[in-house]
């Protein structure tokens, strides 16, 4: 076992392997949990003003059965047909997503904020037959549907499954005050009607069991689109086996820190994102948790009621979320008293944020790592074991991780190399893209495109994305390192670092800073970097912005920062951005 030095850092009770998997498919895992916790609340949707509604485990089980019956027997879908699901976090999401899986169909998670162009790409690339969409965005369908193979459209309301009066108020507000309910000009069924139709079939003796007989670990469960950071997005093929294994791997590593039937978890990240899908939706459901779904987490004050009204024990999120909460007075003054632990993923957890989080909440926060292509969890810092800030921790059970050079050979300990991984959670490939699949899955190893180093304990540290690396006078500069340094300067709220073409040095470093009061000057930022970094890593220019471009889950998008620079190249972006030359 010398090739897996991390195994000796597994906390007591965590086995090196998850062993034989008891569930043939995801619905088997879900139904088992629903039976165990039938009368407990599974999901609760909490609106910014505290209005809420809940579904118990038994409700979710029955409603998702009905939706599966609708898809197969009313909409006429077959096994393996793709169903696109496009909605924010709400009570309909688990009903629909679990229904799709129970029908033996393939879930295609779609960002509700997508433009028609992006929707057309994702729907036609996946060959989706049906679409379940939030009614607020369904006006785009006139333009989208003719260019796709979608035949069935089901619309859901954000107020679905909420108490009648509350639902009525929300609906009225949407319709008359916010005017966010457009006319829908395409033929569609409401979720309510679809569930009624499915329920009718159930009454006549139809059962989802028949659809699942043929669904095993190798059956495709989801097409999870990724690769948005460069080029066109492609569908990672995640099988039932991938998702079940990753759920169990993640839970195995958490051990007793997730107690069966006793946790209340805050789900701020959108469920269409793979992290929230596997960890929050499936993982915590498996453990019988009470899952608080937040439909719109921005601004962060939208979370205030959820924190006030429910005894949250777990929070998952990205660095941006934790940082944002730490900048909210109500949060810092009354941190959640029942909180036990938090998990960060999706992007690097900055050390100052991690430290402050522990200080404010008095509970651990651990960083993990994974990719859409790995369902997603590959590594994290073990709770109750040794935590190393600034690292992504150690691989979860049944997972092998290495750092390799261009030739695919393992690099010496402590040296940077591309992180590659293998295990039962690694995707089957990219949907209908054999070339890219071959390039990414080489010799059974997932090539992540991330540069990492492993230390003697088997802890991995991400140096940076291969493609974000900046080449200054021939030196490799990793934006993460500079961001981390600048983030530690008082008055810096958020920071993003990119490389710009430079006549003299090839590329030069530019930092974008979102400042708090009192704001540091550009010269102070540079002076701070000079103190902590080698000369070639010090930003050549510092620009101040009110906000950084972010992905739906709050990842800072360096490519958008780069685009801004090139878009703004025509005029003087420097004035508009309040830039000061350093």
């Amino acid at each position, binding site marked *: 076992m010398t090739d897996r030095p991390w195994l000796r850092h597994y906390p007591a009770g965590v086995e090196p392997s998850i062993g034989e998997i008891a569930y043939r498919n995801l619905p088997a895992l879900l139904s088992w949990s629903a039976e165990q916790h039938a009368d407990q609340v599974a999901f609760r949707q909490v609106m910014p003003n505290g209005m809420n509604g809940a579904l118990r485990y038994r409700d979710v089980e029955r409603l998702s059965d009905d939706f599966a019956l609708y898809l197969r027997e009313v909409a006429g879908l077959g096994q393996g047909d793709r169903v696109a699901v496009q909605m924010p976090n709400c009570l309909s999401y688990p009903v629909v997503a679990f229904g799709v899986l129970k029908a033996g169909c393939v879930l295609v998670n779609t960002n509700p904020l997508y433009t028609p162009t992006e929707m057309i790409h994702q729907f036609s690339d996946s060959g989706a037959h049906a679409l379940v969409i939030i009614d607020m965005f369904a006006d785009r369908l006139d333009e989208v549907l003719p260019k796709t193979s979608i035949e069935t459209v089901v619309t859901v309301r954000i107020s679905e499954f909420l*108490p009648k009066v509350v639902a009525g108020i929300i609906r009225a507000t949407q319709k008359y005050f916010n005017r966010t309910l457009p006319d829908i000009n395409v033929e569609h069924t409401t979720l309510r009607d679809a569930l009624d139709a499915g329920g009718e079939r159930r009454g006549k003796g139809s059962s989802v069991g028949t659809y699942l007989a043929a669904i095993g670990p190798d059956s495709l469960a989801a097409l999870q689109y990724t690769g948005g950071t460069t080029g066109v997005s492609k569908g990672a093929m995640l099988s039932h086996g991938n998702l079940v294994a990753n759920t169990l791997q993640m839970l195995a590593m958490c051990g007793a820190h997730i107690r069966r039937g006793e946790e209340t978890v805050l789900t701020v990240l959108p469920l269409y994102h793979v992290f929230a899908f596997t960890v929050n939706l499936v993982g915590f459901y498996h453990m019988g948790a009470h899952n608080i779904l937040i439909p719109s987490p921005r601004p962060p004050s939208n979370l205030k009621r959820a924190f006030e009204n429910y005894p949250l024990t777990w929070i998952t999120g990205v660095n941006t979320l934790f940082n944002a909460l730490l900048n909210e007075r109500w949060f810092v*003054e009354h941190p959640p008293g029942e909180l036990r632990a938090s998990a960060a993923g999706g992007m690097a957890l900055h050390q100052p944020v991690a430290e402050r989080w522990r200080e404010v909440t008095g509970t651990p926060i651990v960083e993990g790592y994974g990719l859409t292509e790995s369902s997603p969890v590959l590594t994290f810092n073990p709770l109750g074991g040794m935590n190393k800030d600034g690292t992504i921790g150690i691989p979860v059970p049944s997972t092998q991780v290495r750092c390799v050079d261009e030739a695919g050979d393992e690099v010496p300990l402590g040296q940077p190399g591309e992180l590659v991984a293998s295990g039962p959670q690694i995707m089957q490939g990219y949907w209908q893209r054999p070339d890219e699949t071959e390039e990414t899955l080489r010799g059974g190893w997932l090539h992540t495109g991330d540069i990492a180093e492993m230390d003697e304990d088997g802890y991995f540290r991400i140096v940076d994305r291969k493609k974000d690396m900046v080449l200054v006078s021939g030196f490799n500069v990793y934006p993460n390192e500079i961001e981390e340094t600048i983030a530690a300067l008082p008055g810096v709220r958020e920071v993003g670092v990119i490389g710009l073409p430079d006549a003299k040095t090839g590329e030069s470093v530019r930092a974008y800073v979102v400042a708090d009061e009192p704001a540091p000057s550009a010269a102070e930022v540079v002076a701070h970097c000079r103190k902590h970094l080698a000369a070639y890593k010090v930003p050549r220019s510092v620009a101040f912005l*009110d*906000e950084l471009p972010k992905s739906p889950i709050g990842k800072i998008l360096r490519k958008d920062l780069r685009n801004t620079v090139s878009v703004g190249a025509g005029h003087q972006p420097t004035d508009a*951005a309040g830039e000061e030359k350093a």
Partner: protein
Amino acid sequence: MSLTASLVLALEGPPPDHEVVTEFEQVMLVGLVFIIMFGLGAGLTPRDFASALRRPQGLIIGWVTQFGIMPFLAFLLVLALVLPLPAEYAAPVAIGALLMGSVPAGTTSNIFTFFSKGNLALSVMMTTNSTLWALVMTPLALLIYGTRLMPEGADLQIPVANILVTLAILLVPVAVAMWIRSRNANIGAVMELMGGFFGLFFIVFLLVTWVPRNWRLLVITPWQVYLVAVCLGLFGITIAYLIARGIKLHPSNARTVGLETGIQNGPLAIAIILLSFPGHPQLGELLIVPALYSLFIVLVATVVTFYFRRANLAEEQKIDNLL
């Protein structure tokens, strides 16, 4: 109509059988105030109080503008515009105006703060804070300024004890709503929403029932009284905003402090008068400033909100919409 003519009419008063506020209106108005106070409480948790106590500086600014500036502003306006009028008429109007300046902030300010992109949390906190402090500060302000305003020989007394009791009673729904909210978040959120709506409904109610029935009173009311009602809100917002900017508060917080200070709880002032001066022969004069203020503040605050949106948003817009 000349000043003297209108004053003669004013002094004659309405016909003897005319009720300035009918019993139905009285019940409705007081009921509405209870609902508004319910809504206020439904938005609060004990944590909000703890937070406010822990970090009082923001609230202190609001407290100073709310109870330092507003009653003083009302006092100056009365001094300049109302007192020159004949004593018999001036006394009740002055009490009404002074009370209008001394009551806490209203929930309507939260709505305008929202539309002018201010700091909603700060607004709610300031409203609550000033509502609680009103128990002490409103009677105190009436004592301080009231004695200086009463013309020689006026037999009108400010029933400070009554006002105190009324304020205490009106805080009961706040506490009850807080308790309900802690038991059921959905009922709490609905009540909070209703409170905001009924705040606006109050104005509509005044417009459709009270104004048409009392048009005579409105016509004979001298222009000075209108001016007091309009200036109290307008100057209040402006002065508090300038102070907040002067001490370098963030523009969005300065907007909040401005609106919060200038927008008083009109319904509360009316309810206090109705409950503290039951059946008073000069009820119309007592109510005139609070009623006019309640009607005009919507207009004043709307204009100010538009100004804030234009002036300040331009100031805060430092970057391209791209980012």
